[in-house]
């Protein structure tokens, strides 16, 4: 009987270890997913600031159309649009475009733009040397801004890609605590006045 108990305990031990391991594996999928997306350039996730020591090769025989799309995340009140919706570029040529943003509300707000590139096969060949999406944008009440994006399309981009669409979604990142604190202060001030 004790022999039986011991082998049961061994099986239960192994099973519980697997359960814990698989639970951890579920969470490990989160960073793994990001690593895979970045390494393979899938899912349209563009990378961070591009830095290169070598000058990128120019290819004036090819023209790539780059289109820009801007949209607001849920409950984001800002006005947000690309200044030009489409540019034609040669691979290797640095190009600057601007996105317009305006905060129409009566409160200072912070926003974060999240990019997505389509078709996702082009992601590895789309380099951004300067982008407003690298940082959060803070706008005072009623303030507007032109936000620059500098990008280079790599000459190594596959021949079948003629058009890239870059989409930005703007999300409200204003700290809710700070906002309500600001409102609180305002109320207090009013009381005093």
């Amino acid at each position: 009987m004790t022999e039986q108990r011991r082998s049961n305990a061994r099986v239960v031990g192994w099973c519980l270890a697997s359960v814990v391991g698989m639970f951890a594996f579920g969470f490990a999928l989160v960073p793994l997913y990001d690593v895979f997306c970045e390494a393979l350039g899938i899912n349209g996730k563009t990378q961070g600031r591009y830095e290169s020591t070598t000058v990128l090769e120019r290819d004036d025989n090819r023209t790539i159309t780059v289109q820009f799309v801007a949209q607001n995340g849920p409950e984001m009140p800002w006005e947000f649009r690309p200044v030009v919706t489409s540019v034609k570029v040669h691979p290797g040529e640095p190009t600057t475009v601007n996105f317009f943003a305006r905060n129409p509300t009566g409160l200072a707000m912070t926003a974060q733009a999240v990019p997505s590139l389509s078709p996702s096969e082009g992601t590895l060949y789309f380099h951004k040397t300067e982008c407003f999406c690298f940082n959060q944008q803070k706008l005072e009440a009623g303030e507007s801004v032109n936000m620059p994006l500098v990008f280079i399309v790599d000459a190594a981009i596959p021949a079948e890609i003629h058009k890239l669409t870059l989409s930005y979604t703007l999300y409200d990142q204003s700290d809710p605590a700070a906002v309500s604190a600001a409102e609180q202060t305002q109320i207090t001030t009013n009381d005093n006045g």
Partner: protein
Amino acid sequence: MSAVIDTHAQDHHHGPAKGFTRWLYTTNHKDIGSMYLIFSFAMFLLGGTMAMVIRAELFQPGLQIVEPEFFNQMTTMHGLIMVFGAVMPAFVGLANWMIPMMIGAPDMALPRMNNWSFWLLPAAFLILISTLFMPGGAPNFGWTFYAPLSTTYGPPSTTFFIFAVHIMGVSSIMGAINVIATILNLRAPGMTLMKMPLFVWTWLITAFLLIAVMPVLAGVVTMMLMDINFGTSFFNAAGGGDPVLFQHVFWFFGHPEVYIMILPAFGAVSEIIPAFSRKPLFGYASMVYAVGAIALLSFVVWAHHMFTVGIPLAGELFFMYATMLIAVPTGVKVFNWVATMFRGALSFEAPMLFAVAFVILFTIGGFSGLMLAVAPADFQYHDTYFVVAHFHYVLVPGAIFGIFASAYYWLPKWTGHMYDETLAQTHFWLSFVGMNLAFFPMHFLGLAGMPRRIPDYALQFADFNMVSSIGAFMFGATQLLFLFIVVKCVRGGEKAAAKPWEGAEGLEWTLPSPAPYHTFATPPEIK
């Protein structure tokens, strides 16, 4: 020494305790198996009622009976209750009843944990069902609960749904550990792995699948919980997360899950077809390897549920071919069942009728699965009624018919009485016709472009939907007949012999009918 203690223990426990505490405290595998089966049938009726609401609303185009919000809650709850409340507990119930008797064990290896894993289930489903009465209603995002529909846009009751999934996950994992420990440690001397009945084999592999993927489900709902309540951004793009990640993690659990729901049925059918063909199973070893191969492949095909989310071409190709590869071991099984029947002395009692219908109709569901596996074609089929037709063909005549076949096959052993064969055959034919009438037209609806999970539809889909609803009502009502047959069989009937089926093989038939409360206190001899 141990044998002496066992005999003493048996002398003191002649039978079950009396009253409700018998069921609350029981550690007997037969009691727990019965409770699992009764619970599962209750959930089957509840989930079925929700299906009737869905089909009543879809009987005609336009909104007649329920609001779209409630319709969405019905499709969600129907799916969750049928998957986690009806099919999975039914197989755990069969495992509890049959595995110890099939391998010559006195009980499950961990009887107290067995009791606990059952009693967690009513608690989990009480929580899940109570969400129907909460402000904002029950979960309404489909049984796959895709983020951000379930996180950003879900009703407040989503947190209760998450808690219910956690509890049923714990219950499934404990049940699976128990099955593994029983099969590995409690086989009678001489019962080598390759002498085990196929039902035991398929359950062993199913238990490993459960251990591997239920924790991943727990993980994904935990991430949802944190996104909803603690401000994390696993699936929220605004905070750097990704909703597509949800689909990857969910289907990493979800695809093995569909095999969890079908493999035990494969095992049961592999017991029943030889019994009524009066021939040994054709290709026993290949059956075992096929189940193993299906289980392994189930881990590398998950993205075939997500062909349209924008995965790269290489990914589409890999998941397409890997999915099609599953047809090979599945085909081995189907051909083995047919070869078992070939030139057998066949008779068609109710278990055999359900088993043969299982083979034919599951194959139809398998073929529509192959159609869906073709990535370029899937863009057309995705989220249409074709998908609904496909998975109902593998789950209703697959899992459910497998459970009915098992129930009729082993009812004489459980109750000591023969069930009413005429009524059982009526149950079969009404189920067979009703089920096909309900689900076959859905193939056409899907190919014609009717989307799934909608309470209203375009006029050109009206006729097929009406046929489908009539079939569904027929199938649903017929299950009350099954309840009647089982109750009648429990209360009385023709006395069942120890081995009521002429061609049946296996240790369970060496025991008297009904099986005594304690069996195989002394392990049997295996030749």
